[in-house]
């Protein structure tokens, strides 16, 4: 373990009584509670933290917050490993294990760095230009590129933690708890509004934590704590720390992720929680990010943002170096000087790009500290190999286009840079608001709002602390008023002592480089985009900023170009000889910073991805050895395996038994709809192709519903239970679609009809009793009610009781045998099921599953959604005989099929001629081994082994089916290369006269 060589003796907001041990690339270090991983690494003198994305250049910590482009680490091990975290956003905790990324074999010695040496070969758009040809080589290229350019690796094991989601509603949402956000939340809360304040730091305060100003003669963080306490005591306010608002969506929906645990969460606690916040009004107080200054080698470890340096000194007590140079184009950077000197860093020079130097207050600091000020000059380059060893300073021409010949070298190990400030406008931009370029502030600021939001403080370009506090208060009051609350008169702001900005920023988008120097000036550190890359892209014709972005990858890293965006646009504008506003800006899209996929999924993982529906008889099936199959959301009994049986044995036994004696299958999953009302019959008459108006009470129809375009929507049954009450069943998978379809026509097309629709799928259970002995079983089960063929003929329905429970019995068939469906209220489901089985004992009743059900219906040539696939009409199956000559949904569209045009496919049966299975989804062809493409004559819709015929059979739709009957073709699978010779037959394999169901 090493000593914290770069920690100051005292100072900082860290808890020096709580040391924490952590590892970075396997080496052990200590830090303190209150450190981030970045500050702890710096306190241990660790400068090299990563390799760059493309050139694999050495990189150090550059920022102190969400803007960090370099220090991306993988935290944790095994299944808890999380890649691509910014070290500046990782709260240090005991036992934390972090690893650098994007290097091989080690950080210090990286093979990929050879790319840097050969970087002339890798200009902007290199991949686009080089790996285009030949196309078939792309797979090979991709493997190489992926290895070379990786941004972290995701763990391979399942995530052991769970995540949660919450929905929240508030009158005013404030994003950011810096000076403006705190005042906005406080003001809105005092108006009585429901307020939410979300902030991504560990504790509120934002820039106050590293401010040299005082609020009411005290440390400004004391003010933040006071406001936090007042908000906490207000029951209508919710404050979320460690929560990043990452998306701003339609109608003021802001989505934020809350980090509830470092490393492993407490038992039964979600590691992260995603908040979906619907806000009446939003205040965006997300602050601003300091810009770098692009000079040669500005990516060497030891170059850092001035504001980040201030944060590390102030907040974490880190001595960043021995000799520092400050390079700035604005006054704000001067605020870092005194704290750095206090921490023991010798500031050897202040290089200011402005000819006249800084304003009075900043100048006074320089004078008081006795520092050397070099005005009207720039750091042209940083010198050093593994880190900064010095800088070369030259004067800057008045137009900013060239540097002078007055070269001077200054040895130093730290360069603090400040290129001005960019408001954090990401959320504003996501809200569809339009950005506006403010030339005086040299920054994009929020323009016209598109939603009910307003930006406040540094997020709209303000710099001074007192003006940010006042602006936040005003924004909070405005939001509260807009949400309908009385925000009172002028809000009161605390008294602030700070130094004022004297001389405005001198825009400096890239430090000019003499023509004889070719070093890299980085604009985008994360994606290795240099000034030269942007200039090249502009010369090659990439004039649109959106194209430039994709070509060079500028701003496309996980930092979303926080430090690079404006510099990049400005360089493009300068190269094109136009103004920055004319170039425009890119669109910021969610998420603001990377969000774990687990957090977005929340609880909807594994079995919880979708609800599972079980029938009332489910437990019985489990007890009796059923294997289950998922049918849509339902679990259905597929077959009941007996000892020693194979799956095929079980299916064949069940199917044979239905043909021989009697079987029972659970049909509770059928969609069920009750239709009531004076005009229920008229309504259904218009819905079905069949005649329903004349359906008598106690009768049932097998009926088709079409879409308005004439294709079959569903086949089902319609039973008239009472005069004004019909009971419909639909296919298991179509229930929701059919219900919405009926509701639509009832409510929007024929609202004059008195009809009421109720889905009763969950309220009714059902069992089909099928087989020659089914009537005997029912006669034994029904309490007195007659089930004779006179009382209950084929396609009849009655109400009766089974073991005291009310049932509806509908006589119809799916298997082709005599059969009945017995429906009962769901709560009686298991009771009736068992009563039927008990009654059937002497008739050898046997349960059967969906496989046998399928075999029986294929043998009978009945259709299911395999055949009713949205491209078929009733006539394809011979059901046009049901079509009435009156209006029904889809009828007018059917006319075009009659009026000539292409001939429709016909429905046929197939019998395998060689005893082998008929491939699923097989195509009917002449010659299965002919070179493709071959003419496809039809396709297999369903197939099975028929225990009745003892042959493999199938159903198919084919051209000119009638002409083919009796002849042999091949069914060939385009996927598996299997094929079987098949004889074309009628689609009904058993009982073609249909005698059995009628008895």
């Amino acid at each position, binding site marked *: 373990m090493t000593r914290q060589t770069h920690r100051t003796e005292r100072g900082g907001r860290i808890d020096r009584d709580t040391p924490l041990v952590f590892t970075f690339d396997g080496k052990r270090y200590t830090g303190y509670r209150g450190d981030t991983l970045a500050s702890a690494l710096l306190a241990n003198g660790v400068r090299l933290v990563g390799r760059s994305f493309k050139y694999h250049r050495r990189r150090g910590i550059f920022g102190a917050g969400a803007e960090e482009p370099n220090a991306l680490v993988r935290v944790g091990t095994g299944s808890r490993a999380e890649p691509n975290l910014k070290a500046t956003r990782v709260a240090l905790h005991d036992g934390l294990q972090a690893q650098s990324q994007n290097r091989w074999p080690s950080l210090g010695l990286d093979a990929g760095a050879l790319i840097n040496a050969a970087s002339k070969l890798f200009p902007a758009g290199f991949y686009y230009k080089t790996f285009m040809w030949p196309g078939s080589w792309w797979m090979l290229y991709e493997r190489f590129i992926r290895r070379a350019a990786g941004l972290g690796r995701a763990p391979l094991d399942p995530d052991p933690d769970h995540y949660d989601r919450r929905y929240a509603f508030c009158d005013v949402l404030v994003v950011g708890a810096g000076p403006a956000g705190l005042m906005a939340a406080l003001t809105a809360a005092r108006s009585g509004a429901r307020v939410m304040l979300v902030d991504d730091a560990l504790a509120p305060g934002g820039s106050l934590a590293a401010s040299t100003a005082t609020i009411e003669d005290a440390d400004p963080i004391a003010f933040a704590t006071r406001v936090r306490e007042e908000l906490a005591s207000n029951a209508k306010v919710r404050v979320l720390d460690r929560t990043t608002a990452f998306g701003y*969506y*339609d*109608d003021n*929906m802001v989505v934020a992720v809350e980090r509830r645990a470092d490393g492993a969460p407490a038992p039964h606690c979600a590691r992260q929680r995603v908040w*979906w916040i*619907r806000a009446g009004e939003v205040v965006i107080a997300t602050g601003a990010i300091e810009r770098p200054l692009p000079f040669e080698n500005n990516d060497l470890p030891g170059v850092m943002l001035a504001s980040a340096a201030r944060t590390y000194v102030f907040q974490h007590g880190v001595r960043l170096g021995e000799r520092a140079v400050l390079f700035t184009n604005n006054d704000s950077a001067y605020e870092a000087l005194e704290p750095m000197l206090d921490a023991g860093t010798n500031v050897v020079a202040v290089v200011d790009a402005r000819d006249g130097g800084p304003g009075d207050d900043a100048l006074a600091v320089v004078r008081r500290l006795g520092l050397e000020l070099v005005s009207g000059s720039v750091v042209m380059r940083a010198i050093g190999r593994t880190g900064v060893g010095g800088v070369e300073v030259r004067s800057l021409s008045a137009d900013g286009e060239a540097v002078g010949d007055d070269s001077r070298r200054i040895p130093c190990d730290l360069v603090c840079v400040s290129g001005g400030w960019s408001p954090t406008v990401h959320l504003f931009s996501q809200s*569809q608001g339009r950005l506006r370029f403010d030339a005086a502030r040299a920054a994009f600021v929020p323009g016209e709002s*598109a939603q009910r939001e307003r930006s406040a403080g540094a997020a709209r370009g303000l710099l001074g602390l007192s003006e940010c506090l006042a602006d936040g208060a005003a924004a909070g009051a405005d939001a509260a008023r807009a949400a309908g609350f009385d925000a009172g008169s002028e809000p009161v702001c605390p008294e602030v002592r700070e130094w004022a900005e004297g001389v405005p920023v001198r825009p400096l988008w890239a430090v000019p480089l003499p023509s004889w120097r070719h070093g890299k000036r980085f604009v985008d550190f994360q994606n290795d985009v240099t000034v030269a890359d942007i200039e090249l892209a502009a010369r090659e014709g990439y004039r649109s900023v959106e194209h430039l972005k994709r070509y060079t990858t500028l701003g496309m890293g996980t930092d979303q170009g926080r430090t690079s965006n404006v510099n990049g646009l400005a360089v493009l504008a300068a190269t094109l000889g136009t103004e920055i506003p004319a170039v425009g800006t890119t669109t910021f899209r969610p998420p603001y910073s990377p969000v774990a996929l687990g957090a977005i999924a929340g609880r909807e993982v594994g079995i919880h991805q979708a609800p599972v529906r079980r029938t009332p008889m489910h437990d019985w099936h489990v007890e009796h050895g059923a294997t289950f199959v998922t049918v849509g959301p339902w679990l259905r009994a597929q077959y009941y395996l007996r000892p020693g049986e194979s799956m095929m044995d079980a299916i064949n036994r069940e199917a044979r038994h239905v043909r021989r004696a009697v079987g029972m299958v659970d049909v509770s999953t059928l969609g069920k709809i009750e239709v009531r009302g004076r005009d229920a019959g008229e309504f259904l008459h218009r819905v079905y192709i069949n005649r329903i108006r004349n359906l008598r009470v106690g009768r049932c129809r097998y009926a088709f519903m079409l879409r*308005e*375009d004439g294709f079959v929507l569903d086949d089902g049954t319609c039973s008239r239970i009472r005069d004004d009450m019909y009971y419909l069943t639909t296919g298991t998978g179509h229930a929701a679609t059919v219900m*919405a379809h009926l*509701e*639509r026509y009832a*409510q*929007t*097309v024929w*609202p004059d009809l008195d009809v009421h629709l109720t889905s009763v799928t969950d309220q009714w259970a059902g069992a089909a009793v099928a087989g020659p002995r089914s009537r005997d079983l029912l006669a034994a089960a029904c309490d007195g009610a007659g089930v004779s063929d006179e009382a209950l003929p084929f396609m009849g329905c009655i109400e009766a009781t089974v073991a005291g429970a009310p049932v509806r019995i509908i006589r119809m068939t799916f298997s082709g045998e005599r059969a009945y469906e017995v429906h009962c209220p769901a709560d009686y489901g298991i009771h009736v099921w068992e009563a039927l089985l008990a009654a059937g004992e002497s008739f050898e009743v046997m349960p059967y599953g969906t496989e046998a059900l399928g075999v029986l219906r294929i043998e009978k040539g009945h259709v299911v959604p395999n055949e009713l696939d949205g491209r078929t009409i009733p006539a394809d199956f011979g059901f046009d005989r049901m079509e009435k000559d009156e*209006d029904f949904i889809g*009828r*007018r*569209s059917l*006319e*075009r099929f009659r*009026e000539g045009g292409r001939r429709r496919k016909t429905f046929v049966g197939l019998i395998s001629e060689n005893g082998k299975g008929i491939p699923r989804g097989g195509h009917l062809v002449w010659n299965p081994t002919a070179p493709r493409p071959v003419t496809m004559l039809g396709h297999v819709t369903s197939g099975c082994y028929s225990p009745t015929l003892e042959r493999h059979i199938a159903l198919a739709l084919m051209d000119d089916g009638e002409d083919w009957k009796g002849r042999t073709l091949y069914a060939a699978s385009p996927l598996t290369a299997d094929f079987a010779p098949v004889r074309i037959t009628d689609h009904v394999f058993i009982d073609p006269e249909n005698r059995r169901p009628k008895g």
Partner: protein
Amino acid sequence: MLLITCPWCGPRAHIEFTYGGDATVDRPADPDAVSAEEWLDHIYLRDNPRGPHVEWWQHGAGCRGWFKVRRDTWTHRIHRSGPPGADLGEDEPR
């Protein structure tokens, strides 16, 4: 996530609703009275406007009512909604 106002339940998140297509076309009262071309038009042809559009939505996870929504296909802004028989007008409120 859009906020859609159901005429019967009030404003709800759009995940509660299902989109139901163009609400500016009505099913001909007597389909036999229109020509084949008119019928094909009714079934298949829809305008694809950039701007305000009246469309059907169903509150499937709520009252199950079908209703009309006047929505701007360009900005996503929902101007108003009303029951099936409502005329949602032309002018947009500011």
